[in-house]
């Protein structure tokens, strides 16, 4: 279960619309993630939400063989960290690829794809770029 905070609510609302939205600092011009109410680069509170391109590169990953019970993707699954074009990194699942270290490559280009979980929750997953 995910319960948003005031500073994260807009992110989850955007995900429900199949948009990847990031907090952007009008003071120092940097994006950040996870969403905070103040910019972790300069501590300014002058933030706005901007839609991200949804493109990025695989920063690192693991193939999880022992995961949570009843995890929707089943095991093995790829737990990944993606560095977004805008700069910040996001933890996600890499989908649309064999969960195998010979096919998943650090540095590979990936793009966002949204996974419906419930009325309240849609998760940003990523897949190899151009796979769709």
């Amino acid at each position, binding site marked *: *279960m*995910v*319960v*948003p*905070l005031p500073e*994260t609510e807009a992110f989850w609302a955007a995900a429900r619309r199949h948009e990847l939205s990031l907090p952007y600092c009008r003071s120092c011009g940097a994006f950040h*993630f*996870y969403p905070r109410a103040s910019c972790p680069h300069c501590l300014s509170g002058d933030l706005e939400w901007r839609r991200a391109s949804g493109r990025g590169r695989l*920063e*690192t*990953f*693991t*193939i*999880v*063989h*022992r*995961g*949570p019970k009843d*995890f929707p*993707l089943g095991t*093995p*699954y790829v*737990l*990944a*960290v993606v560095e977004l074009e805008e700069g910040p*990194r*996001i*933890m*996600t*699942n890499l989908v649309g690829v064999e969960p195998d*270290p010979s096919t998943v490559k*650090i540095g590979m280009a990936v793009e966002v794809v949204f996974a419906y*979980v419930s009325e309240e*929750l849609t*998760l940003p997953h990523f897949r190899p770029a151009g796979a769709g």
Partner: protein
Amino acid sequence: MTTGERRRLRGRVAIVGAGESDELGKLPHKSALALHAEGARNALADAGLTKKDVDGVFSAGLWMAAETAEYMGIRPRYLDGTQIGGCSFIAHVEHAAAALDAGLCDVALITHGESGASRVGMPGTRFGPDSVRMQFEGPFGLFGPPTGYALAAARHMHDYGTTSEQLAELAVSTRKWAQQNPRAAMRDPLTVADVLASRMISWPLHLLDCCLVTDGGGALVMTRADRAKDLPKRPVWVLGTGECSSHVHVSQMPNYARWDAAEVAARLAFEMAGVRHADIDVAEFYDAFTIVPVMGLEAAGFCKPGEGGAFVSGGRTAPGGPFPMNTNGGGLSYTHTGMYGMFTLVEAARQLRGECGPRQVAGAKTAICHGLGGMFSASATLICGTEVP
């Protein structure tokens, strides 16, 4: 603060008592706080002191330090509950050194107790559904420490060519130390092939790349130099300390192939101690997973970034090797309650006093304890010795 100002603390305080719980392992008949108290009782006896002498309590876990003190019936005038993960107790040594030197307390007791396996008297999870952890990591199957550490191991392998065989070498060398420690949980012979053939938990980490999960406790007693000299055991002098925190959540780790916080903590400790890496006789490196000491050795400057895998190969850290490390058998084979850092401190103290029997590193005068907190989030380092340089 300059190195000179930090160095003022060098040799001003000492570890004068070190102890562990009577038993380690699976202890469903003992609560976590009972294990704190048991460790404290043994450490105080080791120091030749009683709880009446204690006026500073330092503790980490899922309780306030005040609750630990209440359980032991101590009314401290100085408390520190700094919680930065498993290396908290190493950070407490730095905090206790400062507090003792400033006269804010006279006898510092640092305690650890955890029912990591049996979960007796352990508070529930601190991660609510609105936490960062459960919003931005949990939904993607970040499942316990192995999945988080695997993210770093995979990147380290990618950037530097570190291999599973190299990581397995560390587990094998550590097991050889455990075979010389009758209290160690895992004492069967172990080979690199055994590690590689063990079940994959979270690629690239196998089951035998992962630490044990046990119950246990331990404690340290510290005091100032004047009093330390009158106590029964040879003082273990605090020479250098350092600590740093760079993040908490693994999704916020600045660089997956490097342990930034440990680079800072170790640099501070070496600068303060004024010793060289070659002066270290015995090393206790936090080993929750095989990748942790590999990255720790790099961060602490024993080898260059990327060279940790080669450094631990060829039995270098095993008994008889040139770099005696994790001489109790480590978190991999001795015990790992969840916050292992206390056990690095107790073992370093015992090695420096020459109390380690068959696993004793002959003539050990200077030791390093190198600790991990969270997901490569924090680090604390202690350099201690039998003499003040």
